[in-house]
């Protein structure tokens, strides 16, 4: 509302909030009437501050953030409250005004890197768009126009930073350095150093001066001043990507999204979000779809970058540990309301609201322990799996030297390359126990699981199920085998047929295996729904009416229908919110105690492993690098890779769930 303060003015004043949201209400008009997604949320972000909104899906955290940047879907609207950005009311902006604000003042790093880049445009083009849309000048002429301060040649203060190193200038500088160094012994090392440190489109004139002087370019100051006069827009794109942590950025900018991994795509999205140097960056679950180790490097990088640029960050996550680690101030949202807000440490140590208390106690972290059931406690003194165990363990699945090689089509016609997804791994799953295969994506853990399910034929090696080599099974025996080993998959949205009612989904395996008649099957389905704590009335409904956690319960009920002995859980809880995740793990654990189930648990999340597994195999690049009992791995990790995975668990350094810590 206040007209006297321009955004530049407030930006330099740290006492004034950058973003101030008061009593925000957001409603969606749906076919079943008005739905209030946010009911009176308050939040404040000061310049340069990192604030996290924590909450489960449907809590309104993303909706609040989208309201700030004016990206609500068409059926959504702000129905109450005010949003002030840098002192200006931006609650109801005209489309043109909102356009001007987006990108240049408020940036966004979206949630899912796989779907947020347009697949048909090159990465560089998509970064360039955000520069062009916000009128960011990269050439010297453009810069001078932008700021009168640059007109003077002798400027040496930080304002000079606005001139970036161009690709031509870099070539010339390297060439001059080569001649200058001549035959000196360390020339090669210095040139490599220069090549690495001079980032096209990112290194500023002041930085280049320092680097070149250090490396011994004669008359460095004058040479650099005359050569570094701003780069082309393509140089700046490469520079932005390099700043976001993408290696070999100039070449990468010419590639398409499908040539990038998830982590690389997220880096590109960070480059896009920060391209026009906004004062506020909204990071909406920026790493939830990524592996923990990738998550950590990307968040570290983002934190470094934003603190360097003085960008305020509004960080949205469902992971309390992550939020506490990354933000100074936490805002906890629950069902459209802000239930608690305050300094991160204070909320962790003394949560006031019951919801926050639950969130804190169920946060998976290093501190948490194996979920104990009565059954497990009773046999706690049982044998441990391991190569050294001399007692004949009752192993239900034994994999020996398992290898899977995929043939990939090569570049030239008719040629092919071999890719070894799983490289000679051996593991044993003891009856009634849980074995976890842990690794990042691409480590071969899911391929191993598919071989254990006999859905994929091993290239070599064998899998023995209950004493029988599964590769020798005939058609009929295989059918029987399927009954004894059941899978639960990662994505509860994709693993249930949307056209099948819940009843039909759960009943299908019974029908396929001709178990009982229609009546007894219905009784069994009811029983199964009870087991997974779903109301029996749910069986007439369809998957799209259910939440993620409910769907995963249905998937578990379906897996249990045939009374299997082994369940292979392929990332069974990775897609779920923390609280739901804790419930599902407890459920799996109780079922194990009740029916003596054996679990082969595939996950990338070590925090989950600690809660459910008896023993762990850590996989990297298709090999098992470490295999031991769970406590052993956590308390005394032997391999550097395992330690890296452990350190990457969000909130590892904080003692969340302190009540459960030993």
């Amino acid at each position: 509302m206040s007209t006297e303060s321009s955004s530049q003015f407030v930006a330099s004043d740290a006492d004034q909030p950058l973003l101030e949201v008061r009593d925000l209400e957001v409603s969606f008009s749906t076919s079943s009437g008005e739905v209030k997604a946010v009911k009176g949320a308050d939040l404040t972000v000061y310049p340069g501050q990192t604030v996290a909104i924590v909450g489960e899906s449907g809590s309104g955290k993303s909706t609040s953030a989208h309201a700030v940047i004016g990206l609500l879907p068409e059926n959504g609207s702000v129905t109450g409250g005010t949003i002030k950005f840098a002192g200006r009311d931006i609650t109801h902006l005209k489309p043109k005004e909102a356009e001007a604000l987006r990108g240049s003042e408020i940036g966004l790093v979206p949630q899912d890197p796989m779907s947020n880049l347009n697949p048909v445009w090159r990465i560089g083009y998509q970064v360039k768009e955000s520069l062009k849309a916000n009128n960011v000048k990269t050439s010297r002429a453009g810069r001078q126009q932008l700021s009168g301060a640059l007109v003077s040649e002798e400027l040496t203060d930080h304002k000079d930073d606005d001139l970036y190193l161009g690709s031509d200038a870099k070539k010339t500088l390297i060439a001059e350095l080569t001649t200058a160094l001549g035959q000196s012994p360390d020339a090669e090392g210095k040139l490599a150093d220069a090549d690495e440190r001079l980032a096209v489109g990112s290194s500023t004139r002041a930085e280049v001066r320092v680097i070149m002087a250090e490396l011994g370019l004669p008359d460095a100051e004058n040479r650099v001043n005359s050569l570094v006069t701003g780069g082309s827009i393509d140089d700046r794109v490469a520079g932005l990507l390099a700043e976001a942590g993408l290696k070999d950025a100039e070449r990468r900018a010419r590639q398409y999204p499908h040539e990038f991994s998830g982590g690389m795509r997220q880096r590109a999205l960070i480059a896009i979000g920060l391209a026009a140097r906004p004062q506020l960056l909204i990071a909406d679950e920026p790493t939830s779809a990524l592996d923990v180790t990738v998550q950590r490097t990307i968040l570290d990088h983002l934190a470094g970058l934003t603190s360097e640029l003085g960008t305020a960050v509004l960080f949205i996550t469902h992971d309390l540990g992550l939020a506490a680690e990354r933000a100074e101030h936490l805002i906890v949202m629950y069902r459209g309301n802000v239930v608690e807000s305050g300094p991160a440490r204070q909320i962790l140590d003394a949560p006031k609201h019951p919801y926050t208390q639950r969130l804190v106690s169920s946060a998976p972290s290093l501190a948490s322990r194996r979920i104990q059931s009565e059954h497990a406690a009773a046999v706690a003194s049982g044998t441990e799996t391991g190569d050294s165990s001399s007692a004949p363990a009752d192993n239900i699945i034994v994999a020996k030297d398992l290898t899977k090689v995929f043939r990939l089509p090569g570049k030239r016609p008719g040629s092919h390359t071999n890719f070894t997804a799983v490289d000679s791994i051996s593991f044993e799953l003891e009856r009634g126990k849980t074995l976890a295969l842990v690794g990042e994506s691409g480590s071969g853990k899911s391929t191993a699981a598919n071989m254990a399910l006999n859905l994929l034929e091993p290239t070599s090696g064998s899998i023995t199920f209950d004493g029988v080599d599964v590769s020798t099974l005939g058609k009929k025996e295989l059918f029987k085998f399927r009954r004894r080993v059941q899978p639960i998959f990662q994505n509860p949205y994709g693993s249930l047929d949307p056209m099948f009612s819940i009843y039909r989904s759960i009943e299908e395996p019974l029908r396929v295996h001709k178990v009982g008649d229609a009546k007894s099957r219905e009784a069994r389905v009811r029983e199964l729904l009870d087991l997974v704590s779903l109301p029996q009335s749910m069986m007439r409904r369809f998957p799209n009416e259910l939440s993620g956690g409910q769907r995963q319960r249905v998937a578990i009920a379906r897996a249990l229908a045939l009374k299997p002995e082994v369940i292979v859980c392929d990332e069974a809880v990775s897609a779920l919110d923390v609280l739901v995740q804790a419930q599902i793990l407890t459920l799996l654990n109780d079922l194990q105690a009740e029916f003596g189930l054996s679990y082969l648990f595939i996950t990338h999340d070590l925090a989950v492993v600690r809660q459910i597994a008896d023993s762990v195999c850590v996989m990297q690049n298709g090999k098992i690098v470490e295999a031991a009992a769970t406590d052993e791995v956590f308390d005394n990790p032997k391999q550097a890779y395992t330690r890296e995975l452990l350190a990457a668990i969000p909130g590892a350094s904080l003692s969340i769930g302190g009540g459960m810590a030993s």
Partner: protein
Amino acid sequence: MAWYVARRVMQLIPVFLGATLLIYSLVFLLPGDPIQALGGERGVPPAVADQLRAQYNLDKPFIVQYLLYLQGLFSFDLGVSFSGREISEIIASAFPTTFQLAIMALVIETVLGVGVGLIAGLRKGGIFDATFLIVSLLVIAVPIFVIGFVFQFLFGVQLGWFPPTVGSDVSFYTLMLPAIVLGSVSFAYVMRLTRTTVAENLGADYVRTATAKGLSRRRVVSVHVLRNSMIPVVTFLGVDLGALMGGAVVTEGIFNVPGIGNALYTAIKAQDSPAVVSIVTVLVIVFLIANLLVDLLYAVLDPRIRYA
């Protein structure tokens, strides 16, 4: 890429052989004696009939006939029709007309279909959208010969905007009315396809990201929504081009367009098997080439498709 094209061209060989064999055998199996049919009511004297049979190889076993036909094809000799014209000449005279008609129909349906579909997709559920959904439903539901006759009567006879028939006077102007009729059905499909994909892509995450960059609405729609929406539309248009090139027998009949459809119709009626087989063969090749071009265009629109 080059390897992909080479492989696709090699794939033409079995398709080509299969199609010609199938057509040849179907024509061969047609009831009635084509030589007797030539004589009409009076019949053909046995000596003349035998001589004609020998000339057209009709006295030889089926497979020999087929192989002799292939031999002719590979020496670029499509043979002579029963009516005594060189078949290559028939095709050469009819094909340009059909080609022009097909391209005109394709341009009409693409420009109108994509334009209307885009607006309808952007304003899904609005009056514009509803109106054109009904229009497209009508066009799809009404048989093309009805549309043809109605347009001919309305714009050709009553209003006199266009000549009602084409005849020997083939020009851009005279072909306009048949092109509109020919393109009308495909227009409805293109419009519906565009509308659906545009509406779907509008909700895509990358469109939201593009908006978050600060791009104008116009740019978001043209760069991020429209290009991605064109991928399925191009597939449809490619198949449609092949079908249009095949000559629209009905439309060409209504407007008396001297195109390939008309030539084919005449040949079938006369049981002129050499002509039928040759014309169909050329059409098969045209269809396959149109499809190849679409597949290549695909890679331009969608870089995820890699040819290996």
